[in-house]
């Protein structure tokens, strides 16, 4: 797998627990991160991702477990001694200091000589294109500029590990996209090792080399964006990652010879029938029938049939569906179909000639299908 060895890992978290009194907010966290990786911690609010980051930084003490940074045990070290830098959601720029002094503060504290400090600050300012702002105060900067200064302050010390705590959450939607690209560019040019916390799964998908999905203080899945997206380990990950999220429909599966027959109930009449020629649910033996959750992403439910008519009948299968609601979204048109007890979303092309109330052939891409246990939510 991707887990790096302790000696090479830039960050290795082992059996980390964090309790506040009786409440266990982080449970048995094990994460290993290779140098140069962009690791994104993602999850809904209250999942413990920010607490975990705080534990890595040393601002929060952990209850048990160990944290190694660049091969050294940093579990009990002060934040200042961990060779890390952090970018805060609030930017946390020092309001009484100029941009130049803000960026150079860590060097100032470490008594780096003036010439060296000036050179490094200038270098970072150049990288972030903020040379013209060096003599301003934070109050005189826009949100995006403050964000750059905050990153500058982190970059200038060239630490082993960068921690980003929801750095883009305070920016407006447009600027967020710009800065996201900027962060990715900086990661590519500097090759820095970054742990990045966000609740925004798009940010996670676009930035990460690996994603850690968390829920209720437990790591659900660690993997590349593709692994997380295509092979979510459970229904929670499937639902959380991706927008619109994966359609999780309740249906039955029966293994019949070389295929698995899927039946998904519809409110208007006979169930929708599909045939999975892939491996199907691992636990399903020949001849068996089981009720389970069938997961298909919106882009695996398209109007390809409407346009080309070419179905191979194996990975791509067509079935007529009653469109409940049609939502044009510019680049795509989303259509809601009542399937398997949920409002399944199909992603149609923008110019699809469809309207609510029509029965339309929808192309199902069976190669993208996932199965989950109804009770546990685990991938089958």
């Amino acid at each position: 797998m991707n887990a790096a060895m302790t000696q090479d890992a830039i960050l290795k978290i082992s059996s980390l627990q964090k309790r506040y009194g009786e409440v266990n907010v982080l449970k048995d966290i094990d994460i290993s991160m290779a140098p140069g990786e962009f690791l994104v911690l993602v999850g809904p609010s209250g999942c413990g991702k920010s607490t975990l980051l705080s534990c890595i930084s040393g601002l929060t003490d952990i209850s048990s477990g160990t944290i190694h940074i660049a091969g050294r045990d940093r579990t009990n070290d002060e934040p200042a001694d961990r060779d890390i830098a952090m970018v805060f959601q609030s930017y946390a720029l020092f309001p009484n200091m100029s941009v130049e002094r803000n960026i150079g503060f860590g060097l100032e504290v470490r008594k780096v000589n003036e010439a060296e400090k000036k050179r490094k600050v200038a270098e970072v300012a150049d990288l972030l294109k903020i040379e013209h702002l060096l003599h301003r105060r934070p109050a005189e900067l826009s949100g995006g500029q403050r964000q750059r200064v905050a990153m500058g302050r982190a970059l200038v010390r060239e630490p082993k590990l960068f921690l980003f705590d929801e750095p883009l959450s305070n920016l407006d939607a447009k600027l967020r996209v710009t800065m996201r690209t900027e962060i990715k560019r900086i990661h590519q040019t500097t090759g820095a090792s970054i742990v990045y916390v966000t609740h925004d799964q798009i940010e996670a998908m676009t930035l990460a080399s690996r994603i850690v999905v968390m829920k209720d203080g437990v790591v659900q899945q660690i993997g590349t964006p593709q692994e997380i997206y295509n092979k979510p380990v459970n229904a929670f990950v499937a639902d959380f990652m991706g927008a619109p999220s994966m359609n999780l429909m309740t249906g039955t599966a029966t293994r019949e010879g070389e295929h698995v027959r899927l039946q998904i109930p519809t409110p208007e009449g006979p169930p929708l029938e599909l045939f999975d020629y892939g491996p199907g649910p691992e636990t399903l033996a020949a001849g068996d029938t089981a009720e389970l959750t069938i997961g298909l992403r919106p882009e695996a439910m398209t109007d390809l049939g409407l346009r080309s008519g070419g179905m191979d009948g194996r990975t791509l299968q067509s079935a007529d569906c009653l469109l409940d609601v049609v939502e044009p979204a510019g680049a795509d048109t989303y259509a809601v179909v009542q399937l398997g007890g949920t409002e399944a979303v199909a992603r149609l092309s923008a110019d699809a000639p469809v309207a609510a109330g029509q029965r339309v052939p929808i192309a199902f891409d069976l190669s993208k299908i996932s199965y989950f246990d109804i009770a546990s939510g685990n991938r089958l």
Partner: protein
Amino acid sequence: MLGRRQKREKWILLAPALAVLALITLIPLANTLWLSFTDTRISALPEPVHFIGLENYVYALTDPDFQEALFRTLYFTIVSVGLEGVLGVAVAVLLNQEFRGRTLLRALIILPWAVPTIVNAVAWRLIYHPDYGALNSLLFQLGIISDYRSWIGDPATAMNMVILADVWKNFPLVAYVALAALQTVPEDLSKAAAIEGAGPWKRFCSITLPWIAGPLMVVMVLRTIEAFRVFDIIYVMTGGGPADSTKTASFYVYQEYFNYLRSGSGASYAVLVAGISAVLIVFYYSVTKRQTAGGAA
């Protein structure tokens, strides 16, 4: 823009307040200014009053006793306001930590400030009492002094003892304002500074103190103005003595007026004291303005 009618209404509505203000501030001020250019004396019998120009001022500015009183006042102001600032901020930082009983302690700490100055002065006079004062008893039992002393009866210690009493009474005000300001310091700033490697002292000096500087300045200005015109605590504790060692400018003015009954000359001293206060206020104001201009976002 206000119409002509509204303008008239505005003045009608303001008139009562202006009248009261004139009665209690402007008229006495003008009267004092006038007095300061005369040789008026307070007496039972009407005496002729002569306009004597700047004579009172020339006398006051060349009067070595008054100059000494001014320096004493300056000493009192600098030392007591300085100590109140340091103690106030230190206590505020402590009260800003999380510990059991914090709320209770926060409430208790304001008590000295709530005590009337006269009561405070009497209480401290008892504490300093040469025969049965608590301070003597404490220091004696700790072995720091071998004989009871007359703390406010000794010209060498009297002023500092008065300052101590004044600091005890007034530092809670500074502490409260500082505490309120401390609660607005964003936690992220301290965290960021900690990660950047700044120790507690560096964090305090570089982050916390600049953040609370504005509000702190305001309370320090208030305290400076109050301290510079100090009268009541000295009147009760030492009466300006011993040997004039606690005789401040305001006390000097008081004596000139009410002991020596020279209201003309007394008025000129009063105007001088007010003038110096005004200079201090302007100075502080400019400092405060500079602080807030570059201060909190």
